[in-house]
């Protein structure tokens, strides 16, 4: 059964949009929240896929950006809700509970972090890169735990969801709408990026770095920019996730989460535009249904994952469209 990728992509997006609307009709707000969770995880994974699927860089530390985005939101909202001032020395603020501003800050901080982490990590390759990104994730994780001012290990609660001008974000369907709109926007940008000269260069870099240099392109700069873009998007997802749960904790920095992001992408199909989205939906569905059946559903997830890696290349999208490999 081979279906053109466009059709599958379209069907998935329509399905994601339709499910919450149906849930609204039958008054099941929890379902809306579940789909929102999938959309946010999808966004985080789309960010990672820029460097992983596209650039071929196995970053096992993307939770850093997810956590930074989450904490950016948490810190700004915390100061706003407690009416305290955040004094950074060169800059003071009373915090904010406005989503657009929080998103910009989250993306900005993640981008800056990605720049410096990238400068260090991208000089290495292969296994070193994997291990170093993993290590950086841990670094932030332990730092967050020991940072008692913002909750430390217990995390930080935000009492009220942040606000978006003109909308009531407390209503699940409206918050879903915001997240879904952002996801679609990022998908459009990524689709354009893939076909643009930058995307061509990044894609070539994955296949042959030697070739790229002899074509007059600077591999390090291309990788770095991709890493920064990737970090910013995952950071945005982190801020949204924190808003969804109204809670930020060091767990957002955990290596387990970094691993889950990679798993999401694999399930759906590496390097494909909608791979991360499909993967996120499947993952959340598994988490919900399998998790409802048994406390130890991770065992089954592990076995499924082993199966995919050892036997089924290309993920679900590969299965449906009959194409293999990370070809976009």
């Amino acid at each position, binding site marked *: 059964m081979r279906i053109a990728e466009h059709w599958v992509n379209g069907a998935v997006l329509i399905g994601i949009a339709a499910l919450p609307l149906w849930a609204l009709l039958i008054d099941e707000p929890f379902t809306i929240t579940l789909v929102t969770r999938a959309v946010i995880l999808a966004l985080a994974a789309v960010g990672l896929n820029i460097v992983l699927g596209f650039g071929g860089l196995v970053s096992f530390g993307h939770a850093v950006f997810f956590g930074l985005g989450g904490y950016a939101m948490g810190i700004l909202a915390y100061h706003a809700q407690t009416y305290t001032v955040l004094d950074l020395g060169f800059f003071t603020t009373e915090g904010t509970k406005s989503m657009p501003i929080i998103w910009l800050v989250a993306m900005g901080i993640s981008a800056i972090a990605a720049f410096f982490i990238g400068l260090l990590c991208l000089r290495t390759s292969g296994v070193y890169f994997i291990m170093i990104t993993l290590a950086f994730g841990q670094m932030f994780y332990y730092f967050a735990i020991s940072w008692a001012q913002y909750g430390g290990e217990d995390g930080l609660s935000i009492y009220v969801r942040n606000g978006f001008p003109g909308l009531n974000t407390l209503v699940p369907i409206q918050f879903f709408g915001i997240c879904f709109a952002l996801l679609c926007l990022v998908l459009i940008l990524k689709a*354009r*990026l893939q*076909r*643009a*000269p*930058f*995307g*061509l*260069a990044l*894609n*070539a870099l994955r*296949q*042959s770095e*030697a*070739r*790229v*240099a*002899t*074509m*007059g*392109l*600077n*591999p390090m*700069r*291309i990788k770095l920019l991709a890493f920064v873009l990737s970090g910013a998007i995952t950071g945005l997802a982190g801020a949204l996730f924190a808003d969804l749960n109204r809670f930020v904790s060091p767990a957002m920095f955990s290596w387990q989460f970094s691993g889950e992001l990679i798993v999401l992408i694999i399930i759906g199909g590496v390097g494909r535009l909608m791979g991360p989205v499909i993967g996120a939906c499947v993952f959340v569905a598994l988490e919900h249904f399998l998790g409802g059946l048994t406390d130890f559903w991770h065992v089954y997830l592990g076995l499924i994952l082993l199966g995919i890696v050892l036997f089924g290349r290309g993920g679900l999208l590969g299965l449906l469209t009959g194409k293999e*490999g*990370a*070809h976009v």
Partner: protein
Amino acid sequence: MSDAAPILETRHLSKSFGALKATDDVSITLQPGEIHAIIGPNGAGKSTLIQQICGALRPDTGNVVLDGRDISGLSTQARARAGLGRTFQVSQLCMEDSVLENALLGAVGAQGAAWRFWRRALETAELRATAEAALARVGLSDEAATRCANLSHGARRQLEVAMALTLRPRAFIMDEPMAGMGAAGSKRLTGLLDGLRQEAPILLVEHDMDAVFALADRISVLVYGKIIATGSAQEIRSSRAVREAYLGDAE
């Protein structure tokens, strides 16, 4: 021909790996419009020499000069932009992509277009024109949409040349372009390279002696990292030093 300033020059290039002298005081020139072949027995250090010229390896001493400009300190990508068009001994192509997409890559690099994020590369007129012209030049226009993984070996070698062409190079550095080619393919590629020298001179490392003697204006012989002879095909064929290097002290 020897009056004009050389397009490419190496001056006293030397590189050692521990006790092994891979490149021993190599000074060669590439004149405009010529094909200068580097030949030598296996292990002579031809690959090491190429890598130093193209920027993949830093020599211990010596310079590489392109168009009178010292490029010794430049990175591989900077040298490519300065006009060095390299082809690889083992094809370095983006196997998952089409022939046209590979050719576009060179155009992107040559025109510094990597920082464009919105408009499709295929729809960008200047990029596409450069890529298609290069493909036409090497005779690959019909295969533009073919995935590289599905290309014949000969077509891949042609694509290597096309990609170097998109850079509009000042000089070609070709590392065994005939590698793995059958007789018919070699002939076609030889014809292509013959015509190419007018656009830019070619520094050619090759094992295929038929191609070398058919194409080369000058031949240099590299043995144990040292150039032992440089001259026309005639001179090299009749040189005793060269025969000894290849055949030992046999009579």
